[in-house]
C-alpha cells in the first residue's frame, strides 16, 4: 500500500514554479529594452541588461534553493509513501495536476536546486552573448527539471520530461561552441548538429512512452502514479509497456547503444549546460526506471533484467575503452558518464536493496562529481578556448589549487574510497553480486578502466613539464571558480565518509519499493 499525505501549503508547486518568476522578470526587462530598427539593443543597455539578468538569475536560483529546503523541512524521511502531495483538477477524466515527493525524488529535487546556482555562477563570465536569453532558458529549464521529479501524475511527468528538451535545445544550439560538421552532404555548425541530434533522439524515445501512456490511460482510466503503481497490468501488457518506457529512459540515461547523442551534446554545450546535462538531465532516466518501470511493470522488469545487465556491462566496459581513446576532455568525461550510468541501471534492475540504493547513490554522487569535472574543464576552456587534451600539460606549475581540485574529482570519478563515487559503485556491485556474480565480475572491470582513462586525462593535462608557451601565463582559479568546486568537494567527501544521511532519506522509500516489487513477483508466480 502506498500512502499519500497531503501538504498544508503547496510547497512543491512553489518550488517548481518559482524559477519562472525570475525568468518572467528577465523577459520583461528584455522586452522593455530599447532597440533600433534592426532589433539590436544598444551596447550600453545590453551590458546593463546582462548584469541585471545575471543577478536576477542568481537570486532566483538561491531563492529556489531556500524554498526547496523549506519544503524538505516539511518532509518526514521516516515515512515511505508520498508526501507534500497536492492535487488540482486539470484535464478531467482521471488526469489531474498532482505533485508529491517521496524519499527518492526529494533528493533529486535538492540536487537540482543545489546545482542550479552553481551553473549560474559558472556562466557568470563565460557567457557574454545574449545573457538575458541564456538566463531565461536556464530558469525555465530548472522549472521543468523540478517538475519532472515532483510530478505525481504520469501525464504531468511526461509534459515536464518532454518540455525540458526545448530550453536545452536552445542552450546547446545558441551558446554552444564553434566549429562545423559535415552531415548528409551539408555543412552545418556542429552545435546545431548536436542540438538537433539531442532533440530528435530524446523525442523518438519518449514518443513511444506517449503511446504506452495512452494505452495505460485507456486501461486504468487514470494517469495517477500511485494508482498505476498498484494497478496490475497483465504480464504480456507489462512487457510492451516496459519496452516503451525503456526506450524513453534508456535514451535519456543514456544507455549503450543509444548514447551517441550525449558526447556530441556535452562537447557542444556551454560549461553550465554540460553540468546540468550530466548532473540532472541524465538522472531523469534513472529516476524514470525507479518510478515507473520497476513498480509498474515488475514482471517485465524481471524478464528483461538480463537485457539491462548486458547493456549495462557493455556500457561500462565499452564506453570506458572509448573514453580511453578520446582527445577531447569533455568527450572523455561524457563517455565516462555513460559508463557510470551503466552502474546505475545495473543496480536498479537487480531489484535488491543494495543495488537500488547503490544506483540512487551513484546518481547523486555522479551529479556532484561529473558536474564538478565539467566545471573543471570549463575553467581551462575559458582561459585557452580549447578542449584538446594535447593542448595542455604541466598545469600544476601554474595552477596548484586547480590541480588539487581536479585531482580530487578525478579520484572521485574513479571511485576512490572516501569519495561518494565509491559508495555508489560498491553498493551497486554488491546488489549485482547477489543476483549473479558474473555481472559484478564484469562491472568491476569498469572500475579499473575508469582509473585508466581518468588518470591518463589528469596526467596529460596537469603533470609533466610546462612546455607550451600559451600556458606560461595561465592564471589559477579565482574565487568564483573554486567556491562552487569546493562546495561540491565538501559534499562528495561528506557523503563518501558518511553516506548515512542520504541513505536514511531514501531507504524507507526503497524498502517499500522492494516490498511491493517482491509481492508483485510472488503474486505473478515468479
Amino acid at each position, binding site marked *: 500500500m502506498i500512502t499519500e499525505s497531503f501538504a498544508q501549503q503547496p510547497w512543491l508547486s512553489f518550488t517548481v514554479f518559482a524559477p519562472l518568476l525570475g525568468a518572467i522578470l528577465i523577459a520583461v526587462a528584455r522586452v522593455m529594452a530599447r532597440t533600433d530598427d534592426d*532589433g539590436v539593443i544598444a551596447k550600453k543597455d545590453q551590458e546593463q541588461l546582462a548584469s541585471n539578468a545575471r543577478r536576477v538569475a542568481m537570486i532566483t536560483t538561491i531563492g529556489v534553493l531556500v524554498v526547496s529546503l523549506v519544503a524538505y523541512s516539511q518532509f518526514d524521511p521516516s515515512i515511505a509513501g508520498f508526501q507534500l502531495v497536492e492535487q488540482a483538477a486539470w484535464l*478531467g477524466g482521471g488526469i489531474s495536476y498532482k505533485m508529491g515527493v517521496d524519499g527518492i525524488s526529494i533528493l533529486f529535487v535538492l540536487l537540482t536546486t543545489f546545482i542550479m546556482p552553481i551553473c549560474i555562477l559558472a556562466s557568470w563570465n563565460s557567457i557574454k552573448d545574449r545573457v538575458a536569453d541564456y538566463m531565461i532558458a536556464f530558469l525555465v529549464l530548472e522549472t521543468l527539471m523540478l517538475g519532472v521529479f515532483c510530478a505525481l501524475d504520469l501525464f504531468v511527468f511526461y509534459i515536464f520530461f518532454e518540455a525540458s528538451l526545448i530550453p536545452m535545445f536552445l542552450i546547446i544550439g545558441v551558446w554552444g561552441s564553434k566549429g562545423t560538421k559535415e552531415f548528409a552532404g551539408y555543412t552545418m555548425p556542429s552545435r546545431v548538429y548536436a542540438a538537433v541530434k539531442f532533440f*530528435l533522439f530524446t523525442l523518438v524515445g519518449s*514518443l513511444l512512452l*506517449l*503511446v504506452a501512456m*495512452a494505452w495505460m490511460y485507456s486501461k486504468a482510466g487514470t494517469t495517477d502514479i500511485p494508482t498505476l503503481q498498484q494497478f496490475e497490468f497483465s504480464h504480456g501488457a507489462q512487457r510492451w509497456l516496459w519496452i516503451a518506457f525503456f526506450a524513453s529512459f534508456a535514451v535519456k540515461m543514456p544507455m549503450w547503444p543509444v548514447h551517441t547523442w550525449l558526447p556530441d551534446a556535452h562537447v557542444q554545450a556551454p560549461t553550465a549546460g554540460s553540468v546540468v546535462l550530466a548532473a540532472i538531465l541524465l538522472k531523469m532516466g534513472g529516476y524514470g526506471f525507479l518510478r515507473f518501470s520497476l513498480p509498474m511493470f515488475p514482471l517485465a522488469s524481471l524478464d528483461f533484467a538480463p537485457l539491462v545487465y548486458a547493456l549495462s556491462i557493455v556500457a561500462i566496459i565499452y564506453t570506458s575503452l572509448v573514453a580511453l581513446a578520446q582527445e577531447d576532455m569533455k568527450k572523455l568525461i561524457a563517455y565516462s558518464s555513460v559508463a557510470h550510468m551503466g552502474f546505475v541501471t545495473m543496480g536498479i534492475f537487480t531489484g535488491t536493496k543494495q543495488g537500488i540504493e547503490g544506483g540512487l547513490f551513484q546518481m547523486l554522487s555522479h551529479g556532484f562529481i561529473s558536474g564538478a569535472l565539467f566545471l573543471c574543464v570549463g575553467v581551462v576552456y575559458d582561459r585557452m578556448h580549447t578542449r584538446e587534451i594535447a593542448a595542455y600539460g604541466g598545469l600544476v606549475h601554474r595552477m596548484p589549487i586547480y590541480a588539487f581540485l581536479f585531482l580530487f574529482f578525478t579520484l572521485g570519478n574513479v571511485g576512490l574510497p572516501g569519495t561518494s563515487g565509491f559508495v555508489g559503485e560498491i553498493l551497486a556491485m554488491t546488489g549485482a553480486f547477489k543476483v549473479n556474480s558474473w555481472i559484478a565480475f564484469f562491472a568491476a572491470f569498469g572500475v579499473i578502466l575508469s582509473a585508466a582513462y581518468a588518470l591518463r586525462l589528469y596526467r596529460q593535462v596537469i603533470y609533466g613539464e610546462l612546455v607550451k608557451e600559451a600556458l606560461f601565463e595561465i592564471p589559477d582559479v579565482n574565487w568564483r571558480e573554486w567556491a562552487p568546486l569546493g562546495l561540491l568537494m565538501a559534499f562528495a567527501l561528506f557523503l563518501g565518509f558518511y553516506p548515512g544521511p542520504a541513505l536514511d532519506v531514501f531507504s524507507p522509500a526503497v524498502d517499500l519499493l522492494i516490498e511491493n516489487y517482491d509481492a508483485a513477483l510472488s503474486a505473478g508466480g515468479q
Partner: protein
Amino acid sequence: MTLVDMLSYAYPELVLAIGSMALLITGVFMGENSAQKISLASIAVLAIAVAFVVFRPAVGGATIFADAFRIDGFSEFVKTVLYITAGFAIMMSHRYFQGDDNWRFEYPILILLSVFGMSLMVSANDLIALYMGIETQSLALYVLASINRDSRRSTEAGLKYFVLGALSSCLMLYGASLIYGFTGSVSFTEIAKIAETSGGENVGLIIGLVFLISGLAFKVSAAPFHMWTPDVYEGAPTPVTAFFAAAPKFAAMALFIRVLMTAFPTALADWQMVIALIAVASMMVGAFSAIAQTNIKRLMAYSSIGHVGYALMGLAAGTAPGVSSILIYMTIYIVMTIGAFACILMMRRRGGLTEDISDLSGLTKTNMPLALVLTILLFSLAGIPPMAGFFGKWYVFVAAVDAGLVWLAILGVLASAVSAYYYLRIVWFMWFDEPAPAFERDVGPALQMTAGVSAIMVFPILVIFIGVLYQAADRAAAALF
C-alpha cells in the same frame, strides 16, 4: 413546425446570407475604396452570427427543412470556431491587399459566402444538402484563390483548385448517386437504418461510400488526394492560404464526421480501415514531403496534410471520444495555423512578402517578439509539450488506442518525430543562424494581435483550460451518438 420556427434555427446562416448580399450591394454602390469598411462590416456580420450560435443554442438538437438540415451541439461547436476563424482571416488580410493596392471589397464578402457554405456543410443531414454546402463553399474558395487576378501564380492556383475540386465533386456525386440507388433515400438517418439491416452485403452501398470518402478526403486534403494542396497554398495570396488552411478543412472534417457517424455508424468495420490508411498516408506524406521544402507556404501545406492525418486518426476510432478528439485537435490546429500565417504575413521586406525559410535566419537577433511567437507556434505544431498542440495529439492518440488501433498510434508518433525535424529546422534558423536582413517593423496591429493572441492561446491559456475545451468538445460529440 412552421416555416418561421424552422428559420429561427437557421439564424446564423440567414445572418451570413443576408449580410453578405447586403454588403455586396453596398460595396457596388460605394465603389472600389469601400474595401476597408466592408471588411469591418463583414467581421461584424460574423460576430452577430457567433452571437446567435452561442446565445441561442438548440437544446437537444433540431432537424429542419424536411430532414435536410440538422442543428445540434456538434454543428454549433464547429460553427463557432469557423466564424471566429473567418473573422481573424479577414482581419489579417487587410494589410496585405493594401500594400498591393488591390484590396477589393469582394474579398471579405467571398469569405462570408464560403463560410455560409461551410455552415451548410456542418449542418447537412442529407446527401443533397451535403453537396450544396460543399459547392457553395468551394465556388467561393475558387474565386478567393485567384483573387489576385493580375498575378499568374494566383490565377494558376485558382484554376488548379477548380479543376481538381470539380473532379472531387464528380467522385462525390457519383458516390452519392450510388448510395441513393442502393438505399432509395438521401437522408442520413434513413441510410443508416437501411445500412444497418442490409449490413455488409450491400456492396453497392459500400462502393458508393468509398467514392464519397474519396471526395471528402480531397476536401480535407488527406493523402492520397492531397496533390492540389501545396500548389494552391503556394500560389494563392497568403491571407487566403491562411484561411484555406484553417476554416474549410475544419468544415470538411466536420462533414466527414457527420456522414460517417450518422449515415454509416453500422458500417464501421467497412470504412474503419479505409480511414486509418488515409490517416497513415497523410501523416507520412505530411512528415516526409515537408522536409525538403524551402518555401514556408508549401511547408505549411504539407504540415496541414500531416495534421489532417492525425485528426483522421480520431475518426478511424469511430467512437464518441474519437469525435471529440477531432474537435479538440482541429480547434487547436486552427489556432496554431492562423497564428503561424500571421507570422508569415509579417515576413515583409521592402514592401514585399518573402516566403523562403532562410529569410527567417537569425530572427531572434532582429525581431525577438516575432521569433518567440513563431517558436511557440512551431513547437506546438510539432506537438511538443507543454504547447497546446501536444494536447490535441494526446486526445487523438487516446481515442485511437481506446479503439484498439495501437498500431495507428505508433505510426502516428513516428510520423510526428519525423515532422518535428522540419519544424525544428525553422526554429534553428531563427535561433542559431546569423541574421538575415531585418523585416519591416511596421506591420500593423491586426497581424501582431492575431499572432500574439494565438501564441498566448497555444501556451499557456489552452493548456491551463484544456479541461474546458475538452468538456465543450465532449458535449458536441455526444450530439452525434
